[in-house]
């Protein structure tokens, strides 16, 4: 029945769209619901059945939430911590990822396991000794302390993801550049790095978002200089339902913007269709 190749192609296109829409519904509906709940009035959250369409909108809880003491400074602190973590994790992690992809050296596997070790122990049992380290070094209650901890938490993802991507960059391109007289650094920056950019963007996404949402370390290492999640997310569970949604939603927004920016770096090699 599909003897006509054009009809077959059209049917494939339709099937493709159907599949994409189905996945989008699954991934998007919870996001829609959190937005809906954050913008609903308090009373409408207690009705049954819950309204599934935005019929009873109110920005009251959200604006009340945003005017809480510490939300704006907490936002600035989170931004600082996130960007510092991003920079530090890339500076420390990208060279290591390159080394893992390009060199076979003794201890390669031990190094990978060591990286994972820091992520594999639930951070809660380290919270008291970690806080003591920062207390004795005088970094306690600064955004540096949180950023350093987040850098350590982000390093395994940064190193491993970038290594997977460097591995895919053909070695010949780099060698060709060197033969034509480029220094190894120039060859790395101009030939390897652009091709590895999607991986770097991916790991940057994880790093920033992880730092943006991390609660426990940030709460234990600070007192007055808190990040936004430590300021509000940690105690969200004790707040009334409407506030929980408003808080959850407000915290998501900046991360969504960041993901939007990074996405363009991540997919810049699929040509023009993925904008």
């Amino acid at each position: 029945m599909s003897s006509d190749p054009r009809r077959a192609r059209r049917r494939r296109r339709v099937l493709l769209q159907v599949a994409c829409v189905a996945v989008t519904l699954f991934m998007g509906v919870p996001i829609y619901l959190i937005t809906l709940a954050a913008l609903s009035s308090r009373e409408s959250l207690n009705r049954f059945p819950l309204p599934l369409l935005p019929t009873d909108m109110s920005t009251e809880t959200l604006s009340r939430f945003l005017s809480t003491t510490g939300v704006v400074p907490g936002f600035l602190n989170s931004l600082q911590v996130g960007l510092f973590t991003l920079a530090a994790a890339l500076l420390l992690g990208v060279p290591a990822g390159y080394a893992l992809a390009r060199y076979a050296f003794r201890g390669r596997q031990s190094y990978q396991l060591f990286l994972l070790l820091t992520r594999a122990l639930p951070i809660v049992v380290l919270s008291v000794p970690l806080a003591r380290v920062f207390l004795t070094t005088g970094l306690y209650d600064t955004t540096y302390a949180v950023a350093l901890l987040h850098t350590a938490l982000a390093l395994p993802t940064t190193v491993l993801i970038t290594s997977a991507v460097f591995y895919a960059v053909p070695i010949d391109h780099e060698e060709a550049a060197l033969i034509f007289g480029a220094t190894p650094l120039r060859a790395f920056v101009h030939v390897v790095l652009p091709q590895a950019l999607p991986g770097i963007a991916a790991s940057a996404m994880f790093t920033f978002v992880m730092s943006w949402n991390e609660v426990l370390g940030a709460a234990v290492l600070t007192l007055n200089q808190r990040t936004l999640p430590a300021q509000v997310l940690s105690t969200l569970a004790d707040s009334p339902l409407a506030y929980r949604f408003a808080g959850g939603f407000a915290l998501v927004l900046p991360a969504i913007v960041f993901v939007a920016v990074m996405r363009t770096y991540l997919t810049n090699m699929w040509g023009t269709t993925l904008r």
Partner: protein
Amino acid sequence: MSGAVTAGPATVGGQPGDHPPPVVAPARGKVPTPVLLIAPSLLFLTVLFAWPMVVGVAQAFTGDQGPTLAYVRRLLDDPYLWPAVRNTVLLIVVLIPLQFAFALAMALLLRARPKLAGLYFYIWVLPLAISDLAAGLVWLSIFTDHGYLNSALHSFGVDGYAWLSYENPTTMFLAVLVAELWRATSLVLVIIVAGLQGIPNDYDEAASVFGATYWQRLRWVILPQLRPSLQVAMILRTILALQTFAVAQALAGRDFPLLVGETYHWYHTLQNPNVATAVALVVLAVSMVTAIAYLHLLRDRTAEVTR
């Protein structure tokens, strides 16, 4: 710290320029390049974590009167330990393959370049930005007795169902599974998409010209080239999956105990850091065993390529 940082990229350029391919340059008595490249991260993690790690881990075996196994015994007597181990393993064994199949399917859909691909990709990646606490919140509001799911069923005239009741462990598990699938598949998707970017289309097109079917190309062309990315995603996803519990806790509380949730419970609610550390060491052991297994089973051929 900044001094150690700049040492990283600089060494790439600082290596002997007279040997054309620096990637295979012998060390010539100097510190080998890879060591210089990984040293900053190694040093950083050691400085920050070594002491807390030793102190933290020691808690499991140190009581008021010196070394003791009392906390480990205490843990083994805990009625929640084995259910927690079982649930953790069950969740990972069911979740991870599903997640990889789902993420791979999503990446391949995008690779077929449907219309609006950019928008789709953005929405599919969004859960990444949502903290696990917020994710637990939204899924709880969906599955709870008077939640969105039962509200939707109600509008179709179907009676609600107690999805999260301890009396319905199957739907409870499924709810946790769906929520985790939603929350964490984006991570796998992003790594796979980043990996796909580096794969040249040439082989795929060649195979296609020679009449290979889509499945054959997927099996023999795309997947092998995606292997490093899949390996990394698999290791990271498993380690991170062992660490997450907020969503499961929000949905099922202690009716569905997970190992890391037990660590928090012992540490915060029961105020017993020693037993908490003992649980944490179980998590650590499971993580390390799986990581080693993945590194062996999915061993790439870096060594053969570079030397």
